[in-house]
């Protein structure tokens, strides 16, 4: 064994966006921080790559959804190169040749909804207002370590009382609505509001992303709220497309971390956490090198952190059990296309503003539920749900002039596929996606210059997310808040003194949000490290 040369206040395992956020906050507080990234670049699943000459892709995560405004402010991310461009609309082509569009502009949106249902056009505003109130009640929880409702510790009680105040302000009627959101399926909840199938389907898609659940599975309604939380911070335009792809989000955070003095080493894989006398002392690299750290922070998912980097022998058996039961079940894939020309949608031909927004293949709730049925029994959805953006329409630098890149998020492509993932299965998935999409945009097949298909198995292999789950574990109610990732260990701490977690597998988790990384940094600083 070699002797460690330098001793750090904090060693962060994994240069994904949460690891970088955590490192930036720790460095900003004056700590000596080292980030270790296995791959040759930082960003984890938030990265941009020139997959095909001249064509740049956000290979995995592809939009900025809920990046916390306080992180944008605190780390001065715009100064470090972050530029979020607006995604203006969502187009849902229908099977009958019509479409449903949702626009940012209120009047335009109302007019389009009224074309399908006058009632829905009116209900839409009221729905938004109710969700706004729910989101306001829930939002403060994002920025706090989740309080333990079973504890009588004064600190926990204070946090719970604070939450109780938010809930009390809701009033009885809205509290009941919140209860429904927490218990119902997203499709059932939307049935209470709307009658337009495509509207319900497109909205319900947000409830199933990243899970192996269907729109009629109970508990999926809650995720709707996550979307409205983004809207509360609308002025930050935290919802959109990052110029240069999602890699530039990671690059901006990394630049902020570096500016505060954090060191970042890429192509440096960690083998395990160095534990002596029950305390984390640093990490051991795959090269055998040891690096000492006062604290170690893992941005890896809970399974990799506890079962691989730490090891069962250092952990209480209940925690090992919880982590083994923590559900990943990756269900989504990506298809990235380099295109010689724009897709021409039969329902709305031409190069209209709809191509600067998302295109959602979600014509009806039944369509989504059937896509889920295939996956439930271990098959790829024959006709999958897709969320499509054409980044080159928003940021032309993503492709050569006149050419385009298309990013297709696909669900369901279950990690636990019957017979396992093979090259043939990967291509079959790509074919299912292109065939389905070609029904709505017949020129697509002829426009494809290059196709990249990323399965959950690929996501696991390349970025190390267990079972390819994009959220480091399903965002379902039984593994959220004080249960994420495990009871008693939801506050970024672990049973190993000096070892912390900062990935999406902790509260609040999910999306390129950064809240886990920030909360973890405060937990570490609060612990006096």
């Amino acid at each position, binding site marked *: 064994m070699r002797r460690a040369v330098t001793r750090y206040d904090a060693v962060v395992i994994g240069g994904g966006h949460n690891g970088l956020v955590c490192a930036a906050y720790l460095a900003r507080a004056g700590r000596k921080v080292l980030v270790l990234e296995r791959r040759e670049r930082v960003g984890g699943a938030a990265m941009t790559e020139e997959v095909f000459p001249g064509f740049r892709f956000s290979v995995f995560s592809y939009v900025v959804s809920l990046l916390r405004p306080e992180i944008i402010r605190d780390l001065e991310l715009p100064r470090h190169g972050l530029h979020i461009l607006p995604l203006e609309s969502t187009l849902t082509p229908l099977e009958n040749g019509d479409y449903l569009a949702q626009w940012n502009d209120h009047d335009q949106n109302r007019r389009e909804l009224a074309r399908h249902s006058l*009632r829905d056009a009116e209900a839409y*505003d009221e729905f938004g*207002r109710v969700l706004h109130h729910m989101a306001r009640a829930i939002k403060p929880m994002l920025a706090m370590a989740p309080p333990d409702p079973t504890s009588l510790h004064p600190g926990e009680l204070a946090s719970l009382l604070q939450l109780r105040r938010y809930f009390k302000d809701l009033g009885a009627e809205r509290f009941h609505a919140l209860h429904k959101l927490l218990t119902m399926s997203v499709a059932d909840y939307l049935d209470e509001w709307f009658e337009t199938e495509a509207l319900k389907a497109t909205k319900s898609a947000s409830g199933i992303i990243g899970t192996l659940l269907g729109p009629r599975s109970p508990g999926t309604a809650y995720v709707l709220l996550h979307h409205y939380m983004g809207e509360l911070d609308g002025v930050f335009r935290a919802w959109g497309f990052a110029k240069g792809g999602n890699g530039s989000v990671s690059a901006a955070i990394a630049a902020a971390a570096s500016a505060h003095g954090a060191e970042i080493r890429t192509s440096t894989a960690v083998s395990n956490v160095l534990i002596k006398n029950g305390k984390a002392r640093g990490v051991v690299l795959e090269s055998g090198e040891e690096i000492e750290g006062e604290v170690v922070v893992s941005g890896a998912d809970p399974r990799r952190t506890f079962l691989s980097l730490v090891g069962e022998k250092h952990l209480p058996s209940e925690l090992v059990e919880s982590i083994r039961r923590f559900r990943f079940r990756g269900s989504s894939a990506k298809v990235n296309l380099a295109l010689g020309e724009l897709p021409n949608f039969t329902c709305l031909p031409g190069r209209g503003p709809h191509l600067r927004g998302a295109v959602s293949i979600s014509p009806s709730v039944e369509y989504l539920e059937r896509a889920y049925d295939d996956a439930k029994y271990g098959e790829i959805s024959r006709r999958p749900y897709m969320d499509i953006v054409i980044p080159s329409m928003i940021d032309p630098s993503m492709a050569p002039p006149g050419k385009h890149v298309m990013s297709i998020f696909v669900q369901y492509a279950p990690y636990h596929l019957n017979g396992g993932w093979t090259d043939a299965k990967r291509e079959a998935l790509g074919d299912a996606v292109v065939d389905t999409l070609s029904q709505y945009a017949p020129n697509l097949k002829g426009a494809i210059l290059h196709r990249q298909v990323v399965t959950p198995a690929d996501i696991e292999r390349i970025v190390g997310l267990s079972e390819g789950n994009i959220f480091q574990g399903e965002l379902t109610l039984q593994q959220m808040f004080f249960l994420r990732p495990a009871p008693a260990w939801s506050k970024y701490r672990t049973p190993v003194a000096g070892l912390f977690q900062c990935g999406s597998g902790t509260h609040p988790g999910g999306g390129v949000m950064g809240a886990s990384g920030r909360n973890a940094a405060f937990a570490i600083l609060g612990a006096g490290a």
Partner: protein
Amino acid sequence: MLKTTPFHERTAALCASHSWRRWAGYVAASSYELSHEREYHSIRSSAALFDISPLYKYRLRGPDAARLLDRVTTRDVSRTQVGQVLYTGWCDGAGKLLDDGTVARLGEEHFRMTSADPNLRWLQDNATGLEVEIEDISESVGALSLQGPSAKAILQQLGELPPLKYFRLAETRLRGIPVSISRTGYTGDLGYEIWVSREKSLELWDALMDAGLGYGITPAGMLALDVARIEAGLMLLDVDYVSARKALIESQTSSPYELDLGWTVDLKKPAFIGREALAAEATREPQWRFVGIEVDWDSLEQLHAEAGLATRVPPVPWRTSVPLYAAGEQVGYATSGGWSPLLKKYIALAHLRAQWAAPGTALEMEVTVEHRRRRAAARAVKKPFFDPERKRK
């Protein structure tokens, strides 16, 4: 894309200012000429023609149509006569105003309702168990408003104008075009609103412009209308009050009493939405009042003189929240205001805490003079500021 009204072909050709604004998802002219001034004066001295098609319009038919409107609105609709128009508000269960508009009784079982916001879902949801057909006719019916002292004379050029009292309506033909005419408006002047099918809209516009030529008929936009409706003391949704449907916090909501609409609340009706809350509120003084404000000219002149300037008044009416003070404390806020070219007064519509709302109460209104916030002397006055006899005669 915004929607265009059935009159757009004509209004667009006339809109020399290219100054458009949004109204309920439609484009509406702010002013046709480069300044709204002449358009305003036509309201008070000859006749102004407004395209008011963006109003939401509903047709209610059936044996229970009156019952539905009684259930929803605060006024007694069952007792109105055929040919009568009511101005009314409607509230949520807590007695907070959702919207305001008119209800016209076209027949025993036939009504037309107008509103500022869409209300189809609200009407449908409250029609459970009632025999009434509710139809959104917002897009299929065009509407013009002819306002001003010459309005009647112009209409008389076009055919048999039945004698119409204030807030009465009649079905008739103007130069052969079937229309429904109500003696209503949003200017506080003599005026009529004319309802016509989408198909016949341009024909009606042309007929009115032709007949009005000798009477100084002037197409007028939203700025001129705003001046007139402030003078008339008429409030506007989203400007002077927030619908309880859109309010994010309780303090943004208002009851009819707080908006000086107590006269529209008929507590003798056994049941309507919000009745319980309103009946309770009626037994005590409302906390807020909606009143007129007159800014003191001498004070305004003094503030400008201190900056070395001649007195200036807002060139166009404003729609922002402006603080009002009394005894050094903020006691309310104005929501619409501007210079009245007719009255030669700087006037505003305002919400005031009840104890400061009595006519004559000395107040101060925030004004910005040469980048500095100052307070000009003002006082609460009775609305409307302008109420000519010809309006209801």
